[in-house]
Each structure stands twice: as structure tokens, then as C-alpha cells.
């Protein structure tokens, strides 16, 4: 499989890229810090990537970098096949309420720019007859909840967009995989109190890889979160106003 990953330097993206390298996939990495890209590329090569892992700078906060970065990936891999997006910004609701610059950056990066990036990928994949686009959204986008109002709203928009893509373009060969992680123990969530069913990045990676192989349109990881969100979506407003979940 030929895979381009935006966000493979950390967290679940790192774990997923490693699983891909271990089974000999051909990888191309996109990220915004050149040194980080190089270290991660070497790590993946040593762990088994099929060929040298090449990289290009791509900054989620600078949409003008998307085209050239994807050009580089396309050229190196001789055509895109699977594109994964795990990169995103995070802030707690308190941080985002207090810092409107941070909030603005997060909303733009997680929604507008991620969608613009996906649009670039969509055009390129459709041009060559299809492929897979796997994007990490979040359970935070499933319902307006007190601890994740702003972050969750950016993910809600993203999930919506991905669902629409799937409806419209699956027949044309574009498979969209929307990943909805619940709480996963990465640097992003360090310091937050983990709920009992918190996941580990490597376990998430294993499940996501299977979903990519099968073209599953939507997946909750850890799987327990499908149930949790099913309940949360049905709770009446007066309950949601009371609880802090």
C-alpha cells in the first residue's frame, strides 16, 4: 500500500505509521517541523518500511503548503493511493475560552484547513480513479458537550464533511474512513483524567489499519465509544445541562 500521512510524527499517527511500516507499506510523511519529519522517517525505515521514507513540509495552518506537499508525495510515490490525516490542534475548553487566538487557530486548522486539505486530496484521488482518505475526527463532534464545545464543534463540521464525501464519491472509487477516537492516551490528552475505557495508541492503530484495508466509512476507537456515544446522543437536554461529560 502507498500511504501519505499528515501528522505521523506523534500520537496515534506515529503508532499507525509504525504498523504500516512493520508490514512493509510504502510511506510518505507530511508535517510542519522538518527535523521531526526526518527523525520519524528514520524510525519508520528501521522498523521495516518497504522503501526509504521521504517527507515534505506541510503546515495545517498554511493552506498554501498543501498543493506543493501533495505534489511531492504524488511524485515520490508515483501517484497517491491512501492518504491519512491525524494532525490537529487541541486545547481544553478553559484554554480556548480564555485565549481567542488559540481558539481561532484551532477552529481554522481543525475544520477549514483540514477540509481544504481533503479537497486537494479528493481531486487528486478521483483523477486517478479513486483511493482511500482516512481522517481522524473525534467523538467530541457527536454531541455538543461542556468540556469540548469549541474543539468538538470543529470536529462536528469535519465529521459532517467526511460523511458527505462518502455519500457522494464512494461510487466513484473514493473511500472515506472517518475515525472517531474517544479518549486515547497520547500527548494530546496528557494531564486529563482518563475515563475507565481510555485507549492506547497502538491498539487504536491496529483497528484503524483494519478499517482502512476494508474501507469502513466510520469507526469508533476504542470500540466501547460507539456505545457510549450512542447513549450520549440520546440524552435529553436537561440531562446534558446537568452532567459535566
Amino acid at each position, binding site marked *: 500500500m502507498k500511504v501519505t500521512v499528515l501528522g505521523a*510524527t*506523534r*500520537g496515534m499517527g*506515529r503508532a499507525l505509521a509504525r504498523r504500516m511500516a*512493520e508490514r512493509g507499506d510504502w510511506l510518505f510523511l507530511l508535517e510542519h517541523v522538518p527535523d521531526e519529519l526526518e*527523525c*520519524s522517517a*528514520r*524510525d519508520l525505515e*528501521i*522498523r*521495516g518500511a518497504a522503501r526509504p521514507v521521504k517527507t515534505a513540509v506541510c503546515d495545517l495552518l498554511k493552506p498554501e503548503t498543501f498543493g506543493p506537499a501533495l505534489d511531492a508525495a504524488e511524485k515520490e510515490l508515483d501517484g497517491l493511493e491512501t492518504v491519512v490525516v491525524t494532525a490537529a490542534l487541541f486545547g481544553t475548553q478553559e484554554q480556548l475560552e480564555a485565549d481567542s487566538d488559540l481558539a481561532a487557530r484551532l477552529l481554522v486548522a481543525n475544520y477549514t484547513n483540514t477540509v481544504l486539505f481533503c479537497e486537494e486530496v479528493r481531486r487528486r484521488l478521483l483523477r486517478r480513479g479513486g483511493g482511500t482518505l482516512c481522517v481522524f475526527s473525534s467523538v467530541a463532534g457527536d454531541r455538543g458537550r461542556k468540556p469540548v464545545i469549541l474543539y468538538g464543534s470543529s470536529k462536528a463540521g469535519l465529521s459532517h464533511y467526511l460523511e458527505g464525501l462518502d455519500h457522494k464519491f464512494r461510487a466513484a472509487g473514493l473511500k472515506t474512513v472517518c475515525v472517531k477516537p474517544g479518549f486515547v492516551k*497520547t*500527548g494530546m490528552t*496528557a*494531564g486529563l483524567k482518563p475515563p475507565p475505557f481510555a485507549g492506547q495508541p497502538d491498539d487504536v492503530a491496529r483497528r484503524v489499519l483494519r478499517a482502512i484495508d476494508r474501507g469502513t466509512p466510520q469507526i469508533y476507537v476504542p470500540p466501547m465509544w460507539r456505545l457510549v456515544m450512542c447513549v450520549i446522543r440520546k440524552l435529553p437536554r436537561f440531562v446534558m445541562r446537568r452532567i459535566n461529560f
Partner: protein
Amino acid sequence: MPPQPYATKLAGWGRFPVVDGLAVKSEDLPAATAPAALSRGLGRSYGDSSLPADKNDVIVDTTLADRILAFDPDCAVLRAEAGLSLSALNRALLRKGYFTPVSPGTQFVTLGGMVASDVHGKNHHVDGCFGRYVRRLKLRVADGRIVECSDEHEQELFRATIGGMGLTGHILEVEFTMRKIPSPWIFGESERIANLDAMVAALKEAAAEWPMTVGWLDCLARGENLGRGILMKGRWAEADEAPRKPPPAKRRFRVPVPFPNLALCRPNMKAFNLLYYWKHVRRVRRGIEHPASFFYPLDMLDDWNLIYGSRGFTQYQCVLPHAADNGPARRFLELFISGGGMAFLCVIKDCGAEGDGMLSFPRPGISIAMDFPIHPRKTQPFVDRLNELVIAEGGRIYLTKDTFTRAEHFRAMEPRLETFNAVRRKWDPQGRLRSAQSVRLLGDSV
């Protein structure tokens, strides 16, 4: 945004003591270590080595910094971030014919922890400690600088860091030489042994022939059975005697909740030790073994430390000088048993030469390690008595296992301490780096 410290409770593998501190966890070790007093890896040290001295001390959790940065398959030199675990390293390179030159009894340790404790393994009698294979370290020292040290550059700092329990700086990267192995399987042999003299003799005899040896002792057996147990020996299997396939991943089980404190009462322990001894029905067994069951038998059970209940447990490990009549080891076991000590894990190993690490634990002699549950009143005086015996016999204890030793006892066993302290004073005159253990044993102030 730099990673933010957060308040949390921390404990070592023995789950005692449990202390408050500030943790910081990030892939970016250079950023995370900037404000910190200590780094910790997977928390497999038993006592307070990896714990904060004060609730406002920042402790770095290194486990997300786990990239392999370079690997040369020809000379087997590997460079990686300090949070890389041995289990991840095995997953990446065992199949390809490379293994760590020295492995402790669990693969859930980080490279940083292996350097800081200068760990030893079943091959200590021939291969020494992990530090022998470390070529270079990248360290954040107390004043904030990042220093590369090795035997050629800042040698003193390098040797103080090997076995230095994190007190000389935060290890960011480790470069060391891996071992090339003929196959990823082990050829092992194990043997039932009747008593201590026979055990020491068997270890000595096996040392000449086998690169890896270790003994398990039934430490409830007394009198003429004192020191009986099972001796395990192994070597890497040659390609033509090993199975073609790489060893499959082992199934793991999890201990869900802490056991009641009485689960490890004397009758249960006795039953366990008896069973373990007599399950080895045939006196000698040999054959091909899975490397995980040879090196890491305990790793099969996740969170096995919960078996010891809510009070937690400790491990006492010391090394005692050789003696023709095995007097030191015998007196130690007798004191342990007569003092009411009971353990269901007791390991004996002959150590080879002392390494270059300034405070590194092993020295020529017999090392004995035993796990036991903590008793709120009895454990401290018990460890005191064991330590007094160890001092009298000229031995010493292993810091990474220790929770109860007193500063004056440690000073009495460690003539090397002054040299180590001098290096620390030079690199950290303000005493910024410290742990709960360094306050307890080395006189650091809080």
C-alpha cells in the same frame, strides 16, 4: 505550546510509597525536561528511585519519546530516544537477528531506565552490565545545557550517569551496540538443585559453558534444604536447530484489581514455592524455548504487582562477596528466613566483574533478590537487619529495588559514593536534580 506539567500521584513497581508530584509527558523530551527535577521511564524500579522529592517537583514521563533514530545493521550500533522500551525494540529487531546486549527480567523498561540503573541480566558473569555497551549519551544537565557525553568526551559525567539513577541529568538519547544473534530462539536447560552449596557450585560450573544462567530459590526451605531451587541456563539457538518461524507474540493476561492483603500469607507462599520446585519433576530439562518465556516469564501477567495487595511490596537485592564455604549467602538466607521473611520470588545469580558505572550495582559475588509484601511496622526493622548483615559481609544493595535503606547504611556499603557526589556537585551545584530516593539516601535537601 510547551507541554504542561500536571498534578498526579506516582509510585514505583512496588506500589509503595505513593507520592504527589507534577508530571509532564510529551514526545518532545528536550522541551519536557527543561523545568524538571527528574526523568522516569516505565516505573519498573521498585521503590522511590523514580519518584519526586517534593510535590512541586516536575517529573518527566519519557515513554512517548520512543523513536529509533539510527541503526547500522553491519556494526549493530543503534541510537534511540530514551523512552524507547525494550519490548518495542524487541518487536522491531528480534526477527532481524538483533537483541539488546543485556536484558533485565522484564521488557517493560526504557533505555533511559536501563542506563540509569545500569541493568544486568542472566549474562552478567560474561557480559557485564548494559553500560558496557553504551557508546554515547545525550543528556540535559542541571543548568539546562544539552551535553553529548561518552568515554571520549565528558567521561566523568558519562560514567556517573551509568547507574546514576537519573541524578546527573535527563537522558535524552542513548547510543549503544546491539548483539547479533544466530536465531531469535533460545536453547535452554534447567535443573533441580538440592541446596545452596550445590546451587553455587552449579552456577559456577554452568558459567564456563553457558552465556546465560540464573537460579530460582525456594526461600521457605530450611535446614539441609536451605537454598534449594532450580537453575536455568541458556544460549541463543543456532539457526539450524531453531524453528524456521520467528517466535509468535505471546498471549498476555491482566490482574484486574489489587488482591486482598492476605492473598500472600505464609501457607499460600509455601504452596507456591513447593509447587514450583516439584513441578520440575525431571531433574533436568532441555530444549528450544521462546525468548519471552526465557527472559521475561513474569511479563505474561500484566500488572502482576497488584497481587501484593494494597500495601504494596518491595524487593531486596544485594550482592555478597564470594567465599569458599558460601558463608555470606548462607548467613543471609538464614537471617531472611529466621526474620520471618517470605518471598515467592527469589532469584540467585553469580555476578562477574564490576563495570565502569560509578554507582553501578554488580560486583563479583553472589546476588540474591527477593520480593516481599510490605508490613507497616515490620518491614523497616527487617530491612535494617538485612542491611547490617550485608555491610558486615562486605556486600551492597541495588538502588533501583530499594525503598527502606537508611542513609548511614548506604554510606557504609558504598565507598564509591564520594566520587559520585563530587561529580554531581560539579554538574549540579544548586542541587536541582533529585528524587525521593536521593533525599532519603544521599542527603539531598527538600
